């Protein structure tokens, strides 16, 4: 079973701003269409390793970005992935 994590944004502006900021860091991530199982205001999300999501969130908030939600998806082949909303304040 594979896990991947997602960050969603209130608007496209913040999704692209996040990409622009993270490109200057040594962080692996990808901008992707929001998976159907996640509810998001903006159609583009950031996908990253679940080991990195805390660090990425910190970097983006340091740059005063507006973020919407944080998710972990359990992917099982072609089956609809299981979604878990993350509370990164823990």
């Amino acid at each position, binding site marked *: 079973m594979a896990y991947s994590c997602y960050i969603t944004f*209130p608007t*496209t*502006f913040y999704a692209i*701003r996040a*990409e*622009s900021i993270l490109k200057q860091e040594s962080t692996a991530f990808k901008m992707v269409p929001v998976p159907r199982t996640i509810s998001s205001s*903006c*159609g583009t999300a950031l996908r990253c390793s679940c080991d990195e999501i805390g660090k990425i969130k910190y970097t983006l908030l340091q740059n005063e970005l507006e973020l919407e939600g944080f998710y972990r998806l359990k992917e099982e082949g072609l089956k609809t992935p299981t979604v878990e909303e993350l509370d990164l304040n823990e």
Partner: protein
Amino acid sequence: MSDIIEPCKNELNLYFDNAATSWPKPETVYRAAEKQMRQVCGNPGRSGHTRTLEADRLIYRTREAVAKLFNVTDPARIIFALNATDALNIALKGFLKKGDHVLYTAMEHNSVLRPLGRLQREGLITATMIPCSIKGYPDLDFLEDAYHCETSLLVINHASNVTGSIAPLEEMLKSAKERNVSVLIDAAQTAGSQMINAAALEIDMIAFTGHKSLLGPTGTGGLYVRPGLELTPLREGGTGSQSEIDRHPESMPERLEAGTLNNSGLAGLLEGLKFIEETGIDKIRDHEQKIRAYLYEQLQEVPALKIYGPDSSEPASTVISFTINNVDSGEIGYILESSYGILCRTGLHCAPLAHKAINTFPEGTVRLSPGYFTTIADIDYLVDALKDITAHVAE
């Protein structure tokens, strides 16, 4: 094309109409606009596929480039519009509330005068015009006494499209700030050729167009809105985000943008902005000042020609207006094009109060507006043409 456009008798097409729209553009501007339409063509914010993301990135980079031009930290405070007129409408109608009083200068373009006129006729606001000198500079003593308790906004035409006169921004901003009055700058004639430091001057709003000194395509322009100032949107609709709710997003820049943006135009604008950054805005300004000073001095040598506005030592954009005796300005423009291949603009230039200030209403003037790519040889040819014309007038 030859069957739909009447060919000019003189096909030189020497362009002295940069205050209307700049030409030529840097080659990269043409190429980028075409590439965006042919090869990228995604609708920014609407889908998640590669082309959409490429379009999103382009819009973001263009916002960043405009923000840098105005020394603004947060690109979210730059919104895109159709042109400066559109941006001024968004600013005026989004900022002003019932009962507000507005100050504006006599050099304002109809893009300010007409929205203010409508708001006044509808009984929503009152407004006072700051008179300008015969050279086109606002009367600062009048301004000091013109504020009311209800004054919420001062609109400043940065550079007149009739005379080229550049308003004393720092003094006017200081005057408004002392009274807690917000300031809207109409930078249609200056963005790209004059430094405008929004952060240092604490400017509230700057309306700009993309197709003049920013060297981009028509159909591009926008508005800077300072952090903390939230305008009421003039238009609402699709943004690609929060689609499930019937309320337009409140966060900038989407707050003031609705519908698909002009991608290919903005791709061209980004290249215009890059050209300005690489060349250096100081170098552009210095070159244009040199060109204007030379044009002004040479025009002094043309008999029967009367020049309006600042002389070659006073703060001005490239624009110079003139008349020749009682000859209709439109007739002079026609002769300049048909006999000499010189393109310029004649008439009132959408700024009737400016012409009243310089005593050329309602006849108007001939307006020459060289640009960054105008050469001394171009000016020599133009001045020789005007000497020819005035010799005929004198006959």
